[in-house]
C-alpha cells in the first residue's frame, strides 16, 4: 500500500509543479515518515477491522468467523458495561479536571515568585509513569500503614479497591492527580497569551476581578479549553495502564473500561476476534469525539487558533 502511494507521488507532482522544479524533490522527504505510519498505524487500523471478522486465539491459525464476533459481542452485556464506564470516567474526569486546571492555570500564570515555585512542585506527578502512580497509590491506600493512619483521617481507611463505587472514585481521583498538571500547563500558556489591553479596558469600565474572569479570561480561553478538553476526552480512551495496574478492572467488572476489556478479551481470554470488535468500537468513538469537538471549535478560526496554542 505504501509502495503504491509513493510511486504515484512523483508523477502527480510533476504535473502540478512544472514551474518550480526543485520542489518536486521535496515529496521524497515524506516517504520515511509515511512508510512507518502506513505500516505500523494505517495497516493495523485496517487489520483490526479484518480481524473483527476472524477467529484467532493469538497463537494458532486465523480463520474466518463471519459476523459471529460482532453478534456475540454486541449481545454481550459486558460491552455495554464497559461502554458506560468509559463514558462515565470520561465525563466525570472532564468535570473534575477542567475547573481545577483552569483555575490553577490562571493562578500559575501570575508573575509572583512563590507561584513559580509552586508550579515547579505541581508538575512533579508528570514525571511518574502511570504504572508507578498506580503502584504508589496502592501503598498509599493501605488502611493500616498508609495515609489514613499517617494523617489521622479515619474516613480514608476504606476498602478502596474492593468496593465498586470507591474503586471508580479512586480512579477518577488518581487520573486527576496525574493529569491536572498537564492541563494546568496548557491553560497557563493560554492565559499568558491574552492581550493586556482587554483587561485595561475592562478596568476603565469599572469591571471587577470576577467580572473580568468571566467576561475576558474565560471567553479568551475558548480555544484553549477546546484543546485541553479534546486531549482529555480522546486521552481518556487510553487510561489503560493506570487502571490495569491499579484495579485490573475490578472489583468484578466495575472498572473494566473499553481499552481494558479489549486487552483482557484478546490477551487473557485469547479471543482476538471479539477483542478486535471492541477495538473497532474504540476507534469509532475516538474519531466521532474528535470530530464533534472540532465542530465546537468552529470552522472559521482553525488556522490562527492552531498557532495560538
Amino acid at each position, binding site marked *: 500500500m505504501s509502495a503504491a502511494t509513493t510511486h504515484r507521488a512523483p508523477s502527480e507532482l510533476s504535473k502540478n509543479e512544472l514551474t518550480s522544479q526543485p520542489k518536486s524533490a*521535496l515529496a521524497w522527504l515524506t516517504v520515511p515518515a509515511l512508510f512507518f*505510519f502506513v505500516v*505500523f498505524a494505517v495497516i493495523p487500523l485496517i487489520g483490526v477491522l479484518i480481524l473483527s471478522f476472524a477467529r484467532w486465539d493469538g497463537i494458532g491459525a486465523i480463520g474466518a468467523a463471519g459476523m459471529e464476533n460482532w453478534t456475540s459481542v454486541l449481545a454481550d452485556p459486558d460491552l455495554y458495561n464497559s461502554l458506560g464506564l468509559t463514558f462515565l470516567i470520561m465525563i466525570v474526569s472532564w468535570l473534575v479536571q477542567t475547573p481545577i486546571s483552569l483555575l490553577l492555570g490562571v493562578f500559575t500564570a501570575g508573575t509572583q515568585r512563590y507561584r513559580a515555585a509552586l508550579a515547579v512542585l505541581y508538575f512533579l506527578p508528570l514525571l511518574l509513569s*502511570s504504572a508507578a502512580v498506580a503502584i504508589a497509590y496502592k501503598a498509599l491506600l493501605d488502611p493500616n500503614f498508609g495515609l489514613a493512619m499517617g494523617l489521622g483521617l479515619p474516613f480514608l481507611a476504606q476498602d478502596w479497591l474492593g468496593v465498586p463505587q470507591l474503586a471508580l472514585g479512586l480512579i477518577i481521583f488518581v487520573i486527576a492527580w496525574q493529569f491536572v498538571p498537564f492541563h494546568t500547563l496548557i491553560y497557563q500558556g493560554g492565559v499568558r497569551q491574552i492581550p493586556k489591553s482587554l483587561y485595561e479596558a475592562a478596568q476603565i469600565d469599572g469591571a471587577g476581578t470576577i467580572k473580568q474572569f468571566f467576561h475576558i479570561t474565560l471567553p479568551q480561553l475558548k480555544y484553549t479549553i477546546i484543546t485541553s478538553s479534546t486531549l482529555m476526552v480522546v486521552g481518556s480512551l487510553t487510561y*489503560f495502564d493506570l487502571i490495569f495496574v491499579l484495579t485490573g478492572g475490578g472489583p468484578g467488572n466495575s472498572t473494566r473500561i473499553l481499552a481494558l476489556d479489549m486487552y483482557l478479551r484478546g490477551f487473557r481470554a485469547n479471543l482476538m476476534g471479539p477483542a478486535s470488535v471492541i*477495538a473497532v468500537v*474504540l476507534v469509532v468513538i475516538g474519531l466521532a469525539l474528535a470530530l464533534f469537538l472540532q465542530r465546537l471549535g468552529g470552522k472559521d478560526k482553525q488556522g490562527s487558533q492552531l498557532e495560538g496554542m
Partner: protein
Amino acid sequence: MSTLLKSDPVTGSPGSPTSSVKAKQSLRTRMKRLNIPGGLGGWIWLAIIIIPIYYIVITSLKTSEGYFGQNPMALPASPTLENYQLVLEANFSTYFMNSVMVTLGSVIPTVLISFMAAFAIVRGRGRYLKFVNGVFLMGLAIPLQATIIPIYLMIIRLNLYDSLLAIMLPSIAFAIPLTVLILSNFIRDVPNELFESMRLDGCSDWQTMWRLALPLTRPAIVTVAIYNGLHVWNGFLLPLVLTQSPELRVLPLGLWTFQGEFSVNIPAVLASVVLSTLPILVIYVLGRRQLVSGLTAGFSK
C-alpha cells in the same frame, strides 16, 4: 488535538507573534488581583500533590520495622538504603538500560523522519503533500492503542516478537503525527526571506533543510524529543504485549512485575517507584524549562 485537524499546510501564522509580546506585559497588573481564591486553591492542590510524594519517598527509606512500627507520615527513625539495594539487585539496571535503548531508538528516528516530512509539507506544494498532511492529521484523532492486536500479529509474523525493536517500531509510528504537526508549525514560523536567500545562494532543498531549517527549529526539536521520550519511557501497553522475557523488560514493566513479587515489602516497592522516576527527575532539575515546554509540546507555545 482535533481542533488542529483542519490546519492548512500552506497558510502562514497570523497573529501569534504580536499577541505573545503583548501577553508578557499583561501579567503583572492582572494577576495580582486574583490572589485570594486562587491562592487558597493553589495551596490546597500543593498539599494534594506533595503529601503522596512525601509518603512515597520517606517510606522507601524505612526499614520494615520502621514501616510497621512508626507513624506512616513520620520521618524514618533509622533511614536506610537497603530497599534501594534490593531493587538494584532485582535487575533494575537491565530494565533501565532497556528503557534507555527503547527511548533513544524510538525518539531519534521519529524526530529525524518527522522533521524531514514537516519540512516538505511546509515548503512544498501539490496534492500529494496535502494528502500526506491529511493522513497524519487523521492519525491524531485515532486512539492508536486500539491497533494493538494487529500490531501483535504483525510483530509475530516479522519474527520480532520478544525484542526491543518490537517496541520501537510501533512507538515511532504512533509518535509521527503529532511530531510532524508541531515541527511544521515551527518551520512555518521561519521567515520566507531566509529560505529565499538560501535559494539565491544556490543551495538545494536538502542543504536548506539541514543548514537553515534545522538550526532554527532546534528548540522545537528538543521539545518534541522530550515529549515523545517521556511517552516512550513511561509506555506500558506495547512492552506488555510485545515482549515476554524478563531480561527484555523496560522500567514500567519491571516495576509492575517487581510489585507483584514483592507485594509484602512496601518500602522496597516504593523504592522501585522512586528509582524508576529518578532519571526523569534529574532531567527535570537540570532542564526544567525545556522539559515543561516538552510536556505540552507546543499545545501552549
